[in-house]
């Protein structure tokens, strides 16, 4: 009697439920994911293989075939030799211009927006709501409307066609959305913490730097990613508010790719495009985890 019970308990189901690897659910799920993945990766693949081919090989017309003879010549040319107008020093000039534009713009816009958001969230001063409404309204006005007035404004300030002028433009246009981002994040920080800091004798700046900022790393990372990629990828403001000497990388890329003289060097164009996209790509890769955490932290009340 005892034996039968034991043997029965051995044969009866135990432990995790077995799952078939090739179930219908898995095939549909992974099949769709793989298909979509390939769909998105094909253009990138084409760009990379084309940028590694020589021109004779490209003329054969088979864009999907891997390079027979790998060459980095197009990359070197795109970086250091490609011509835009009279300058023939490649994208490197645009790269450094973009760096000079992006770093101060990101820093200044985030510094101001975070203080804005902090003041709006914690120090509900008189007229705070009106100020906030106006600022948010600014986010909905199309850029085109403001382009020409800003040209006049910059001209009168003596900043038109200069880098500080473009930095100012980026700071202004980043303000509504960044302020909203920071304000919403700071309102999720418990109010009692702010009160405790006030009782403890910390002032406006003391609370900002020593209580709020150390608690808000994720949202600063989110803001940095938004700003770095946004400003790096900006084309419109770069082309309007600067002159060829200060053109950011995107504008220069356009000028290289769209130059009408001579043969179209597809390999150089592809290499130049990839070079321009490397910075945002790099930023996403290193900060992906923090980015997701920051977005989630803004959504969930801590």
């Amino acid at each position, binding site marked *: 009697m005892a034996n039968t019970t034991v043997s029965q308990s051995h044969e009866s189901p135990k432990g995790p439920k077995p799952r078939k690897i090739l179930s219908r659910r898995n095939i549909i799920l992974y099949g769709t994911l793989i298909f979509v993945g390939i769909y998105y990766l094909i253009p990138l693949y084409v760009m990379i293989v084309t940028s590694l081919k020589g021109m004779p090989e490209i003329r054969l017309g088979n864009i999907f075939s891997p390079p027979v003879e790998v060459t980095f010549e197009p990359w070197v040319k795109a970086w250091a030799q490609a011509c835009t107008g009279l300058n023939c020093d490649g994208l490197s000039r645009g790269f450094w211009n973009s760096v000079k534009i992006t770093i101060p713009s990101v820093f200044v816009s985030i510094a101001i927006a975070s203080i804005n958001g902090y003041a709006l969230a914690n120090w509900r001063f008189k007229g705070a709501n009106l100020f906030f409404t106006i600022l948010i309204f600014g986010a909905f006005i199309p850029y085109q409307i403001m382009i020409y007035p800003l040209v006049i404004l910059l001209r009168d300030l003596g900043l038109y066609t200069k880098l500080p002028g473009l930095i100012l433009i980026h700071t202004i246009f980043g303000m509504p959305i960044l302020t909203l981002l920071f304000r919403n994040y700071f309102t999720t920080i418990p109010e009692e913490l702010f*009160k405790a800091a006030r*009782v403890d004798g910390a002032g406006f700046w003391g609370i900002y730097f020593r209580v709020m900022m150390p608690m808000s790393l994720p949202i600063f990372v989110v803001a940095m990613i938004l700003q770095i990629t946004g400003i790096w990828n900006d084309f419109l403001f770069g082309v309007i508010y600067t002159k060829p000497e200060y053109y950011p990388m995107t504008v220069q890329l356009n000028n290289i790719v769209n130059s009408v003289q001579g043969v179209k060097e597809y390999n150089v164009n592809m290499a130049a495009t990839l070079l321009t996209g490397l910075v945002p790509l790099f930023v996403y890769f290193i900060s992906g985890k923090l980015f997701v955490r920051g977005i989630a932290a803004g959504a969930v009340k801590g």
Partner: protein
Amino acid sequence: MNSIEIKDLSLNFGDVIVLKDLNLSVAKGEFLVLLGASGCGKSTLLNCIAGLLDINDGQIFINDQNVTWYEPSDRGIGMVFQSYALYPQMSVEGNLSFSLKNAKISKDEIDKRVKNAAEILQIEDLLDRKPAALSGGQRQRVAIGRALVRDVEVFLFDEPLSNLDAKLRADLRVEIKRLHQKLNNTMIYVTHDQIEAMTLANRIAIMRDGLVLQLDEPKTIYNYPVNKYVAEFIGSPCMNFLKGTILADDKCVFNLDGGWCQSLDLSNYKFHEPIKAEKQVWLGIRPENIAFGDKAENMPVKFNLEVEVVEPMGADTLVWSKIGGQEFRFIVDGTITMNSDDSVLVGFDPIHSSIFDLDSEDRL
């Protein structure tokens, strides 16, 4: 000398009047509890005293100094919050020393005070930890420590124990009382828990709709509540209220609407003013003042009741019943066995009852 003096304080948020012409004095070394249901303005009042809310009118004095327009940190107060409000990125030591660093106090003095506070609260081992690595009780100790290091005259507590579980709450309650006995500084403590209020307070201020209904010693509030609301709020289980009429008839002094009649001897009851016959009232009797069995025999008022529900709570048992259709509870010793539908004899002494006007609900 009064530690805190509030004169004609008014506060409104837009059109909503939160506090109106409130006056309050707290003596030096007193433990005052502000008690009330949520939304009664007790936390708001505390925030006004702390300077975290700008008042619309009135004056606030702390240690005979008019601090009405002072910054919170300059008022000589320490505050403990319900959610602990510890700075998550700082260690316990950082939390304790934050205010002292802001006040630019010398490093030696900071170390001394932090050590002293940690010793009093028994958190010396935790100084290097971050708040996230602490339990709820430990966090609240650190929060109290943060007020302690400031070496201030007045402590403000904003529902400090509400986030803790029942056992810890009882432990910390005693600890706060011990702390008060040791430091002997003024404490204002906001809570909605009447047990905390009764156990801790020298005086309790019961608030409702921005007004202080009664400000008295816990015993006085318990025995002589000024109105039905206060009587309901203090005491657990809640006081019984019987709606009825006081008659001039000797045999039937108190006539219940449901037809139940008792000859209450109210000659010893201290009425504020003589009442007219045929007065409609609430008769309030606390469940713990009702005698049962043999003891009931000796009571001036005694009657039989039918038991409806029995709730054993260990030490004693709460019995639910009805008199003339009105809810009636009483407490008996936990050793007594009782079943529903039993008929039992109970009694009480009218001297322990409270009588309220039916309409105004004020004590008569």
